[in-house]
């Protein structure tokens, strides 16, 4: 949340997160190198440089799969949301590991010729007619450029100054990066591989990531297609019946989507209910999947907070989101589908006695 910028707004959980990332990377590299030394011996022996290139490359691919899997997994298992909070740290770490892989490749395979190493990289293996001669290193280099752009613009400063839409578009390039990485491996390392283990692992990763995204997309679509009938109309829009709200756990929310408009989060705070837009002002995180912590609606992605009664961040922060009018009438809870201007105070509705 924006008051003044810092390099990193460290919290205990961020420190733990980063320690786990560093320890995980080091453990993976050490395990890969030890197992590689044992597996690739005698006629199949490889140099230490190639072993390190493989260790770093596979590590970056595993990290990219985790980055891509965290989002949909957190939607199905809210307990995994803390993994999502600091995903950008994992993204930056993925870039650093991939950059180390690329740097060693550039020096080892292109650094000893007469050509400039970058010219050598661009002109190497450039035959688009044969699978084994596709410029797989170029695919890897392009993926690395995308990872760099995402890592370089990961700070909140960029989110605020590039606009949320542009920032999101830049960071959606992670999918293009993923396709390039898969092509890089398929037309590179796997062309010389005789074991079926590596193609099987790669296929499992691609199928897993794709299946998770499709499943999460279908779940979101189901939420958006729920029918909410208008029961009343006034100057400020249609009122819809929220039905029985007893099943909303305390401090949690129900997602409501009316006629394909932006989602609304109906939060239960004890016996009171309030409604706000479900889109966080930070990165568009799903507020309805968050919870009320210390009296504030807290985004599940990065912990940005808003007061339930007026959609304003607690001082000294200045972010605001839209609120929605909500009322209790004739034993029913009703929500107005039209958003109030961001930061507008709206009285909460009391849960009807029939629902307590």
């Amino acid at each position, binding site marked *: 949340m*924006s*008051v*003044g*910028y*810092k*390099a*990193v707004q460290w919290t205990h959980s961020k420190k733990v997160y980063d320690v786990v990332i560093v320890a995980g990377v080091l453990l993976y590299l050490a395990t890969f190198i030890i197992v590689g030394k044992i597996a690739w011996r005698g006629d199949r022996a490889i140099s230490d440089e190639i072993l390190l290139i493989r260790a770093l490359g596979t590590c970056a691919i595993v990290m990219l799969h985790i980055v891509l899997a965290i989002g949909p997994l957190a939607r199905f298992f809210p307990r995994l949301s803390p993994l999502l909070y600091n995903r950008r740290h994992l993204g930056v770490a993925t870039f650093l590991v991939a950059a180390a892989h690329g740097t060693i490749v550039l020096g080892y395979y292109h650094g000893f010729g007469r050509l*400039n190493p*970058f*010219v050598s990289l*661009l*002109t190497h293996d450039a035959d688009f007619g044969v699978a084994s001669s596709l410029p797989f290193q170029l695919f890897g280099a392009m993926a690395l450029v995308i990872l*760099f*752009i995402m*890592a*370089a*613009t990961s*700070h909140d*400063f*960029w989110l*605020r*100054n*590039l606009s949320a839409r542009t920032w999101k578009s830049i960071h959606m390039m992670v999918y293009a990066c993923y396709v390039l990485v898969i092509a890089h491996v398929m037309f590179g390392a796997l062309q010389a591989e005789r074991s079926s283990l590596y193609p099987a692992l790669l296929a499992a990763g691609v199928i897993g990531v794709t299946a998770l995204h499709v499943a999460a997309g279908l779940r979101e679509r189901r939420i958006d297609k729920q029918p909410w009938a208008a029961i009343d109309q006034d100057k400020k829009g249609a009122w819809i019946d929220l039905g029985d709200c007893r099943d909303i756990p305390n401090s949690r929310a129900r997602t409501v989507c009316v006629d394909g408009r932006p989602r609304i989060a109906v939060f239960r705070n004890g016996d009171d209910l309030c409604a706000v837009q479900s889109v966080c002002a930070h990165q568009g995180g799903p507020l309805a999947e968050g919870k009320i912590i210390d009296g504030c609606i807290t985004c599940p992605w990065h912990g940005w907070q808003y007061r339930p009664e007026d959609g304003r961040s607690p001082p000294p922060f200045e972010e605001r989101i839209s609120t929605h009018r909500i009322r209790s009438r004739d034993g029913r809870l009703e929500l107005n589908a039209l958003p109030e201007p961001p930061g507008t105070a709206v009285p909460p509705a009391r849960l009807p006695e029939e629902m307590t």
Partner: protein
Amino acid sequence: MAEWILTIVAAYLLVGGLFAIAFVSAGVSRVDHAAKGAPLGFRLLILPGAAAMWPLMLLRWIRSDG
């Protein structure tokens, strides 16, 4: 062809690098008032992004109210 591409990329990054130094030193606080008095760590962290996004940030800097 490859040499041409690399020359263009190198020129872009060279200009971007020089711009980024000026931007994180002086321009950033004009573009975004929340960056006034920001620590060195923050400025170093946004330096690579400023080098990569320099045309956009140059426009923002020119249009800033100072």
